[in-house]
């Protein structure tokens, strides 16, 4: 799928979340694309729910191993240092606090960091997979998502109307418009996309944003 310039910039910015030495789980959709924007050779250990740590790059069908997919169903590869394990071990790693970072998609993000990303009752009911455990137990939880949904509605809301994945779990949100931290005081606007004004972001966000004009970057 081709990316728009705005979405590419969003992914490129979010990729800077991933630091050397981290064990990281990337959710399905835009988060998966982050691997394409990591600094080559960055020593990072990618975890996949179906039982892989140290997952290597995706492979085309011609070179695929039929026994090696990631949790999103893409054929992937091994690296020196890759490990395979069962599903209980995989989630022990998550619940036990060994996952430094997860980057997830979102349907809605509440102003207190609530995350809804697994179901739209009556319309989209696939089941939650490993999402609840990732959102609840990764040491750092960031969301990577377009600012607006397909109907133009803001995904950042004062309170999620959709069923929750986990309560008050999100630390930071990256969108095509802004970078926003969830703090004890509220949602803090940290960065805005090049070409936008603060008012553009405020107009597209249903939640009051805390803004420090002296500490506001662009990306």
């Amino acid at each position: 799928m081709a990316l728009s310039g705005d979405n590419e910039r969003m992914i490129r910015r979010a990729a800077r979340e991933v630091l050397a030495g981290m064990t990281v789980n990337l959710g399905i959709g835009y988060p998966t694309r982050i691997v394409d924007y990591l600094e080559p050779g960055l020593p990072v250990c990618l975890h996949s729910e179906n039982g892989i740590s140290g997952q290597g790059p995706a492979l085309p069908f011609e070179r695929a191993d039929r026994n090696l997919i990631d949790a999103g169903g893409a054929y992937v590869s091994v690296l020196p240092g890759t490990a395979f394990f069962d599903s209980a071990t995989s989630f022990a790693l998550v619940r036990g606090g060994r996952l430094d970072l997860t980057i997830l998609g979102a349907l809605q993000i509440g102003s207190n960091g609530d995350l809804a990303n697994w179901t739209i009752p009556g319309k989209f009911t696939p089941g939650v997979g490993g999402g609840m455990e990732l959102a609840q137990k990764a040491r750092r939880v960031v969301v990577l998502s377009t600012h607006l949904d397909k109907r133009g509605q803001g995904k950042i809301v004062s309170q999620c109307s959709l069923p929750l994945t986990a309560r008050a779990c999100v630390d930071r949100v990256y969108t095509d418009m802004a970078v926003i931290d969830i703090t004890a005081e509220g949602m803090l606007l940290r960065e805005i996309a090049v070409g936008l004004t603060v008012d553009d972001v405020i107009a597209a966000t249903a939640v009051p944003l805390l803004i420090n004009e002296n500490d506001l970057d662009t990306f």
Partner: protein
Amino acid sequence: MIDKSTGIEEAISRIADGAIVMVGGFGVPGTPFMLIDELVRQNQQRLTVIKNDANEPHMGIDHLLRNGQVARLIVSHIGLNPHAIKLMNEGRIEVEFCAQGILAERIRSAGAGLPAFLTDIAMDTQLARGKQTTEFEGRQYLVEKALKADVALVHAHASDPFGNLIYAGSARNFNPLMAMAAGTVIVETENLLPLGGISAGAVHTPGPFVDHVVQLHELTGAYGVVRR
């Protein structure tokens, strides 16, 4: 050590109508497609199937769904199978969703002889509905019950006749957990090696958990790379 080699027809005949059946696999890797094909042929009815996912349309346990053999599914995710979602939405099958790692741990618990465990995963969500909660050391937890089956269907890369198993790549997933959690454990293996053919330290599932070993002589196309 005894020889547990069994023909596929005889092995699957151990499944009764109304049975609870665990099926290994996460997507294609680790799904015991040929054991499932034989279960479709024998047509046991009113099954409860426990599996991570519902495979994809016209693959794996979707054949059981299309053949009307499944009353209830216990899964973490069925998003790759719109047919399963349709049956659920039409009320033709009952589906219980479980957070993926909790599903794994419920299965592991049954295999480890534990009746239940406490967790804060899914607290305050839809998946907590109807579940018992309890206070432990000042905090609230959900009580998650162990999940036991009558029969587990497992796919192995290699087995010896005693049922010492090894799995390939990401085909391990739920297979070793299910191999501990059922009254009767049926394994299909791509390679049947002699006793001693698997190095003791390399065994993923020890033979005492396994009841029947079915050797696959030729894999069907279902095991191949899926070009979506």
